């Protein structure tokens, strides 16, 4: 698949602070890409550089295969974005806010304003001033602004901030639906790792300005699934035995229902079972544990 976003050696410094360093990121056409990192890791700076809001000190950004700086008008016609907090004109209604963006974008029918507001669940409040909106409604308005130009690429920075569980579910469903039905590519930055895990097919993790991991979610978690849950008789004896094995890394004997969790190379699971049986311990269950994205993220 062709890359919708590609950054090469992207760097940005603010004085002595090196916010982003040599970042090479690739988002393929049709991806829902989760962009993860701790606060201050450089996610928003990267997004701003991709969108041309911040000038990189080095490197380049390509969108839809075109140099984003040289073909800015062309690539931004196909791009929608919500950067950090939703921005809006509080003294205007939601309809007027989107009308301003419609005028700024050009070539969009006015009926799209109402359609987009209905899509994000603001259909009943389109003519109310935004200053009367709740935080969740403002977040929905921000997402509507990103979706108004019917883009092929949507960049959402913390899209579910301030939304209640129903709102989070609604936005997640909308993202997946737009991706499936219209082939919209998403780059989503979020701290809600569970949301990213169930929504995105690929993730990139940025740490101290550097991209340390970029892979599909499935591959990433399959690679790292080294934990097993054991149910064994004579638990204390089993724990002591497991701790004596140098190829079993972590042993937690305080699991639910007397289960033991052990960390080892997945290829040695059968060997572990045989060792326990040879020791005279009866193994009633040996279940591989899948690592969650959150566990993976926290381990990095």
């Amino acid at each position, binding site marked *: 698949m062709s890359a919708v976003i590609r950054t090469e050696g992207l760097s940005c410094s603010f004085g002595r602070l090196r916010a982003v360093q040599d970042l090479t990121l690739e988002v393929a056409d049709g991806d829902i890409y989760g962009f993860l990192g701790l606060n201050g890791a450089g996610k928003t700076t990267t997004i*701003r550089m991709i*969108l*041309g*809001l*911040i*000038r990189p000190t080095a490197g380049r950004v390509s969108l839809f295969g075109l140099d984003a700086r040289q073909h*800015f*008008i*062309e690539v*931004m*016609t196909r*791009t*929608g*974005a919500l*950067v*950090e*907090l939703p*921005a*809006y*004109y*509080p*003294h*205007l209604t939601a309809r*007027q806010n989107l*009308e*301003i*963006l419609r*005028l*700024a*974008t*050009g070539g969009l029918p006015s009926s799209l304003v109402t359609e987009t507001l209905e899509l994000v669940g603001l259909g009943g409040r389109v003519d109310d001033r935004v200053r009367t909106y709740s935080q969740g409604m403002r977040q929905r308005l921000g997402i509507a*602004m990103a979706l108004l*130009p019917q883009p092929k690429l949507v960049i959402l920075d913390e899209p579910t901030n301030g939304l209640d569980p129903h709102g989070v579910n609604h936005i997640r469903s909308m993202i997946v639906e737009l991706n499936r039905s219209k082939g919209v590519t998403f780059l989503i930055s979020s701290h809600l790792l569970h949301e990213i895990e169930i929504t995105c097919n690929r993730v990139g993790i940025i740490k101290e300005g550097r991209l340390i991991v970029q892979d599909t979610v499935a591959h990433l978690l399959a690679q790292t699934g080294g934990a097993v849950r054991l149910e064994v008789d004579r638990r204390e004896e089993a724990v002591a035995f497991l701790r004596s094995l140098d190829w079993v890394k972590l042993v937690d004997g305080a699991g639910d229902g007397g289960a033991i969790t052990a960390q080892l190379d997945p290829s040695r699971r059968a060997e572990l079972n045989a060792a326990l049986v040879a020791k005279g311990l009866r193994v009633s269950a040996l279940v591989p544990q899948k690592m969650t994205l959150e566990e993976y993220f926290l381990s990095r």
Partner: protein
Amino acid sequence: MITRVLRLTAAELLKLRAHPFLWISLVVVVFFTMTGAALGGPAPSLWRQDHAIAMFASGARIGLKLSTYVLLIFGSMLFAGEFDKGTIKILLTRPITRTDLFAAKSIAAMLLALFLIATVLYTSLAVGCSLGELGPVWDDESYNARRYDELVDHAKRAVAMSVAAVVAAVFFGVLVSNLVESSGFATAIALTAFLVGDEVLLRVFRDDMTRRFFFSVYPGYAFDVLRDYATGSSIAWKGAYVNGRAYLWVPLATVGACVAGGFGVFKMRNITA
């Protein structure tokens, strides 16, 4: 590019029309213009009635002074307000260039300035024509009658001397608006810089006001002279202002410097709002 600028200008005007401060300031400007015009007399004409041109001059002088402050405030909010709210990032992630946005905002600012000037001039003229006399004026010093068409020529000159100066105020605000990211802070800086500039020049060139090359000088001077003419005083236009067209090049140079400075900053800055 022209199409994009026109679209953005329409968007700017939409924002402006919905801004409550526009209507509040408009009411204030109109009220004080009308009051200023109505209290502009008494001016002795041949028939000892208030003269329409004198009332027009008084109203316009007050109205344009207030408009200058209003335009300074609006100019200061033009860009800083977008940074305040963060809306600058949603505008600049649309298929437009920074040049397009700067041009559209400048056009909207200019239209606002022209709208305010026209409102003030028509309001004061309407009050003057409704309440005042339109005949000739007796010149107390040279003992002859000053013809009505002569007064109208002076009024046209006063208007011509004022327009560029009032327009310059909004661009002075635009410059400051690009230097900070808070509209409140920008407004405070613009008003302070304007008042200090005005006051310092007033004190430095107390004895020779023709050397006070500051854009805000001209409307006040022009309508003061017009009012004196319309009340029968023999007062001449100062050559340094009229012959050298300082009333034109000083405000236009201010506009040029403010646009160049503001655009340079806007074009280069990183958007972190």
